[in-house]
């Protein structure tokens, strides 16, 4: 996977600049995508990938961590194929996975509207939308299998929206010019997930899949050294009994979702975490582009210090709502209906007359932050300023009538009213950006294999398809593409070739992994300090939001790294986790997740620091045009930053010792089929 040549390239000046914050290692490149025309690559790879005889499949076992769209679909499909699958989730049922919360829709190049859509166009839109920081081969394949996903879901009984003639309806989404988004009201994720869940449960009933609910993966078992090392299983904790279990298998798939909760407040579920990915990273799996975070512009603002999570409202609201703040700070606490038209600043319409309120997510989010930072935000003061802007439907109601607005957005208005206690038909909604999705994740090759052989990564947990910014309705597409169609075809090549293992529960690699989990658990309970796990998590979230959120600068990131290191140190001295290890203990579960977030946060800041360009969701204050727009530097940064974990040096060893300076491996992004352009929405 890694080639042997050592890099002597341009990045070394930056490396020395940050005073040993990281080092640079050998360049890497994907070795699995075949050569040739892009439209033939996936067909060729499927043909060249080795087969496993049906009679041999039941002797082979695969562990899948996570039961969202990627994990659920992969477990069902591999079960159908006849492999012995073990499926793990920390929730009480696979159906709870956070894919369920996706609202808007799923893209597919079906061209049912005959409006000029094609695989080529979906490929192009996705690469451009990702601000030219994704791998062409992977994105093309995604577009190619997108149509199969819709067929598969309909066959399972997913109730997509339909027209009166009985055929499927499509809508345009996220500013693209074709209607390629399939949807099920505002509950598309729920319906797709229930489809995958039912396919999975069918296999549980058939005996091909063993289901482990309320189980959390806490370590990956890696056997062997160097080129011969392989992922051979996991250590999991039964969250009800506290039992530390060993599960061995021929391959391990992580489909454990994204790490947006490193910001504490996000639209992710309470339990969403990075632990499975981070444990794998510590064992040698590279983490790619960890700083690429998507911050969604239309979320319900924070109402106070008690806030535990943020709720997103579909960005379809921007089709008819107008976004504004008062021109004058003195007006910020007034009733918005009393503020005269000439005293309002419709700032998106002012700055981007061509796209207005429909500019891409990253731009809408950053401008909302800018006006609030200027002191022109609205709503309650949280921290030291007001964090909200108005999303006003008064004009739309005047133009279309209240009934038409209700028909289109009724469920969103109801949700808003329930959460805020305000009536959005009468007074403008307040919105503010929130962390929503991470494009970064574990590095994978074309086969979705991580840098540890036998460890595969699917869905949001990998980095592969969205570059530096994800388009609306593309996350569901990627999760299901990976789970139903990509992984089952690529993992068979690995399984056909993997040597049989004589690993047992008593082998050193297994004992070591199990002991590491036990020691960590004991340590959490033994510290008995003064502060709750949540208080550390909240403080980390504030640091990340402030310095590694919508706008990042060298000064801010250096400060954040210092603060995170201090906080991590205090965590391991002063956290208070009550209760025991042998019962359901939710504080203990959270402690493990927050401990990993405290390391991930530092790596995200280092990644953001080294990437001295603005691209997609990553905006560096030092890299902007004269009008304050993002400025990419393709000559220097058209690569994937894949980070290798380094253990801490010297005296710091054992549980809670943190991390050493990570090693940066660059994978050059070569654009053969698409020309690189600077995005412009003016």
């Amino acid at each position, binding site marked *: 996977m890694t080639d042997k040549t050592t890099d002597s390239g341009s990045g070394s000046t930056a490396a020395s600049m940050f005073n040993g914050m990281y080092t640079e290692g050998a360049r890497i490149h994907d070795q699995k995508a075949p050569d040739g025309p892009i439209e033939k690559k996936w067909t060729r790879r499927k043909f060249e990938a080795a087969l496993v005889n049906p009679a041999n499949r039941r002797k082979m076992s695969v562990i899948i961590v996570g039961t969202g769209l990627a994990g659920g679909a992969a477990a069902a499909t591999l079960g159908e194929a006849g492999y012995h699958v073990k499926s793990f989730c920390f929730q009480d*049922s696979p159906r709870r996975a956070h894919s369920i919360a996706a609202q808007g829709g799923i893209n597919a190049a079906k061209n049912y509207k005959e409006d000029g859509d094609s695989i080529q166009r979906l490929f192009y839109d996705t690469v451009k939308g990702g601000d030219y920081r994704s791998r062409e081969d992977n994105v093309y394949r995604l577009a190619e299998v997108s149509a199969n996903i819709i067929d598969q879901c309909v066959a399972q009984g997913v109730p997509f929206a339909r027209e009166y003639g009985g055929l499927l309806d499509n809508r345009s989404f996220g500013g693209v010019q074709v209607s390629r988004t399939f949807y099920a009201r505002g509950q598309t994720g729920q319906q797709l997930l229930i489809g995958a869940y039912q396919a999975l449960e069918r296999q549980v009933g058939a005996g091909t899949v063993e289901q482990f*609910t309320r189980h959390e993966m806490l370590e990956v078992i890696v056997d062997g050294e160097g080129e011969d090392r392989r992922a051979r299983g996991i250590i999991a904790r039964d969250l009800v009994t506290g039992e530390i279990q060993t599960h061995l298998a021929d391959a391990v798939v992580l489909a454990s979702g994204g790490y947006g909760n490193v910001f504490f407040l996000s639209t992710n579920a309470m339990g969403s975490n990075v632990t499975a990915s981070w444990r794998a990273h510590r064992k040698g799996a590279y983490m790619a582009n960890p700083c690429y975070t998507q911050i969604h512009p239309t979320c319900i603002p924070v109402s106070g210090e008690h806030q535990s999570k943020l709720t997103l409202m579909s960005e379809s609201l921007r089709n008819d709502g107008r976004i504004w703040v008062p021109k004058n700070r003195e007006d910020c606490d007034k009733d918005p209906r009393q503020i005269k038209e000439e005293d309002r600043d419709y700032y998106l319409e002012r700055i981007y007359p061509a796209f207005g309120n429909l500019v891409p997510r990253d731009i809408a989010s950053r401008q909302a932050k800018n006006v609030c930072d200027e002191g022109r935000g609205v709503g309650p003061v949280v921290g030291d300023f007001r964090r909200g802007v108005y999303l006003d439907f008064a004009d739309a109601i005047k133009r279309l009538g209240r009934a038409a607005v209700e028909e289109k957005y009724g469920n969103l208005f109801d949700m808003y009213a329930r*959460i805020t206690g305000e009536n959005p038909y009468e007074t403008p909604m307040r919105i503010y950006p929130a962390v929503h999705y991470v494009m970064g994740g574990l590095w994978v090759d074309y086969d979705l294999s991580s840098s540890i052989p036998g460890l595969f990564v699917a869905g949001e947990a990998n980095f592969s398809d969205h570059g530096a910014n994800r388009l609306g309705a593309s996350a569901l597409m990627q999760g299901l593409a990976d789970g139903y169609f990509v992984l089952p075809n690529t993992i068979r090549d690995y399984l056909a070739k993997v040597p049989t293992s004589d690993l047992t529960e008593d082998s050193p690699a297994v004992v070591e992994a199990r002991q590491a989990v036990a020691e960590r658990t004991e340590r959490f309970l033994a510290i008995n300090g003064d502060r709750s796990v949540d208080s550390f998590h909240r403080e980390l979230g504030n640091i990340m939001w402030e310095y590694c959120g919508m706008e990042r600068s060298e000064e801010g990131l250096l400060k954040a790294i210092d603060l995170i290191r201090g906080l991590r140190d205090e965590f391991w001295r002063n956290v208070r986790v009550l209760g025991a290890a042998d019962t359901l203990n939710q504080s203990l579960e959270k402690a493990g997740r927050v401990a990993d977030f405290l390391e991930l946060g530092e790596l995200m800041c280092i990644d953001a620091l080294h990437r001295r360009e603005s691209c997609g969701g990553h905006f560096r204050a030092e890299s902007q045009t004269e009008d304050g727009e993002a400025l990419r530097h393709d000559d220097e940064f058209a690569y994937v930053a894949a980070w290798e974990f380094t253990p801490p040096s010297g005296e710091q060893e054992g549980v809670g010792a943190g991390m050493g300076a990570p090693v940066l491996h660059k994978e050059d992004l070569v654009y053969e089929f698409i020309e690189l352009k600077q995005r412009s929405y003016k």
Partner: protein
Amino acid sequence: MSNMNLTLKIWRQAGPQDKGQLVTYRVTDISPDMSFLEMLDVLNEELNAKGEEPIAFDSDCREGICGMCGLMISGHAHGPEKTTTCQLHMRSFKDGETITVEPWRAEAFPIVRDLVVDRGAFDRIIQSGGFISANTGAAPDAHAAPVPKDKADRAFMAAECIGCGACVAACPNASGMLFMGAKITHLGELPQGQPERDARVVSMVNQHDHEGFGGCTNIGECSTACPKGIPQDVISQLNKDLRTAMKNGR
């Protein structure tokens, strides 16, 4: 609305075999903008600071769609509003109120700890037949079978079920028939669901009864408690499908 002081009587139970009891707690200065679960978060932070173990309760998405949360609040599944517990806000309560908080109560949902129950029975009902058998890769084009809009809409309405279990908790018989009827109706309205329609309903009902859920006696508490408003007529559909399957010799 100003902040509130409340008395909470919360069910505490160390484990499945232990004896449980209601324990009284007082919380002060609760903002009406907090969700019910955020109020419990605040209480748990206070308990942790005092050296008492926090109260265990389930929640995940906290936006009303994953179905993980669910509490009996003063005798009502998900509390006084028609929504999930995570979407219930403190503005629905009055200053000085006493609120009783219990787990779902049903033999088929054994208590794990405090307010957490085991709803694995729902998974096993789906395993027994709550699916359409369509292996990956075997699907025809999505437009091969058009679905009339009224049928598609009814299928969607039934498919909105989030599997939270409020219907079971609210039912005096602890019946799971609203949950099961929703799945039967969702899949039974679609052309893709026809080949397995008879077998599905028979298997699911057998599993439902085996898990220890009660039968439906048309009381309607289930629909009233359902945060997604699944109507009671899905139970009629379930009974109709079961009768047809029996007639067909299943």
